């Protein structure tokens, strides 16, 4: 079985803390897969390992059939893997357009072509009116869009989104969901880390649940929402039973 993205038994230790304990998941081509779990479960660490920013102590990552474990980030970007950062990382001194153009340069050597491509991407994510604004002066919602735009600018085949909806208000979330769906419809496979469950439910076809470094459940979103292991991971031991009782009584 060779999925488009296959993460196998990744373990990662930080000193005495086992942040990831043989975590595995996969994504089929053209799918949106969500990675959920309580804070500190290891989701961002797993992203960092897939994208080459961190080395795993154990386990392998396969992408399009190739073993890409341990390849540096810039090589993975050239293979078509893009990521966003949970804590937004803009090129603060540059304008929105210049920010996106840095990504666009990967496939456009000439400055003018990269800027033109950047403008197109900005339109796609709704940043077109802000092109000449310095990135440092964007709002949280703007910065999240910029993260997404920079990732899209490298024309990825696989897009890893780390909480691009966190910190947005409900109407901003409603604006972003169709943007993400449209990216998928263009043939990009998406893995998203997300706490905004409303978005996970409407976007993802498959959900993986990570808790304390272990993958504790997988399945379609509605099944996951009802899974007692998942509820306990979020709310503590015995919470599921208490909730059922409360519902009955």
């Amino acid at each position, binding site marked *: 079985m060779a999925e488009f993205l296959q993460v196998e038994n990744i373990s990662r230790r930080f000193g005495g803390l086992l942040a990831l304990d043989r975590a595995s998941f996969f994504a089929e081509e053209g799918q949106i897969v969500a990675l959920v779990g309580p804070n500190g479960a290891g989701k961002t660490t797993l992203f960092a390992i897939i*994208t080459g*920013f961190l080395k795993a102590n154990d386990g392998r990552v396969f992408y399009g059939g190739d073993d890409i474990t341990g390849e*540096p*980030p*810039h090589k993975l*970007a*050239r293979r078509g893997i*893009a*990521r966003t*950062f949970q804590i937004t*990382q*803009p*090129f*603060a*001194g*540059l304008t929105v357009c*210049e920010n996106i*153009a*840095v*990504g666009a*340069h*990967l496939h*456009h*050597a*000439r*400055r003018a072509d*990269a800027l033109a491509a950047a403008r197109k991407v900005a339109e796609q994510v709704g940043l077109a009116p802000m092109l000449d604004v310095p990135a440092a002066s964007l709002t949280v919602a703007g910065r999240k869009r910029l993260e997404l735009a*920079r*990732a899209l*600018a*490298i024309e990825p085949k696989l897009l890893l989104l780390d909480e691009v909806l966190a910190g947005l208000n409900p109407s901003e979330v409603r604006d972003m969901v169709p943007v993400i769906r449209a990216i998928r419809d263009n043939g990009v496979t998406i893995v998203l880390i997300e706490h905004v469950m409303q978005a996970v439910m409407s976007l993802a076809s498959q959900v993986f649940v990570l808790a304390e470094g272990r993958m504790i459940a997988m399945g379609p979103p509605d099944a996951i929402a009802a899974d007692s292991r998942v509820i306990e991971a979020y709310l503590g031991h015995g919470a599921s039973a208490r909730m059922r009782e409360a519902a009955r009584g």
Partner: protein
Amino acid sequence: MRTYAAIAIVVALLALVPFVTASNVVLNFLVVALLIALVGQGWNVLGGYGGQYSFGHAAFFGTGAYVTGVLQVKYGVNAWAGLVIGIAAGALVGAVIGSLSFRSGLRGSYFALVTLAFAEVLRIIASVAPITGAGVGTLIKLDLRWEAFQFQSRAPFYWIILGFVAVSLLLVKRLEGTRFGAYLVAVRENEDAARAAGIDVVSVKLRAMTLSAAITAAGGCFYAQYFLFLDAGIAYGPWISVEALLAPIIGGVGTVFGPLLGALVVRTLGEVTKLLTGHAPGLDLVIYGCVLVLVVAFAPRGISGIVDSVRARFAKKERGHG
């Protein structure tokens, strides 16, 4: 396009100076200021655009100077050939120091300290090695011919260094509009985001350092021909590392004209201090230090930054009234 026009106008105006005055004091002052502008432009490529602050550009300046000088004195190589080889040698030293420090992931103050250390090591070696004349220094024979890159009057020297500065201005302006330039700035602004965008950060820094070193080495080669004397303290001494970073920081880091502007201001300041204090040794350095502190504290983007913000304020006012 406007910047290219500005470069053309500034260079043309400066080129006219020898026709206006034959004063050796004025020309000598401008030659040294332009030399610092060139060396500073080298620093600006790596420090201003790439955000990698080097405290050791003397390593490249000195290599350019010594290679030009020693090749002529010990091996009878033509001075112009020495210039080309000196620039190449400086670039090579830049590539070696860069690959050692960037591959081991040194950033920020660690990078600054390592470059300082390399320059000091080279200075100490040069002060004992027989090939550089050790403590006696290297004296280039007087040979006032065009073919030997030596001239009777200062004007040709002035035009040559002005030519070097013009090329460096054009090069840096050109850099701004290329993919490499965009990558360099991206590395300065945010290394992680740069890596995620597919940028090989180490390779970008390394290329920038090589280019930076080559430009600074050209300044060293010119110094050797102009003063015809080198010793370890001149070629590899901290004074040139300080001038190299002071000019762009005061003029405006990461801007095309910053180093030229800064060099003129710094040299003027230095001369005025010397006049006022009657050549008290080291006092000009004290003044430099104070100016540097003031600029970093109150105008982190240098003179260019001040000009920009004043212009922005005026533009705002105009819009407000209109």
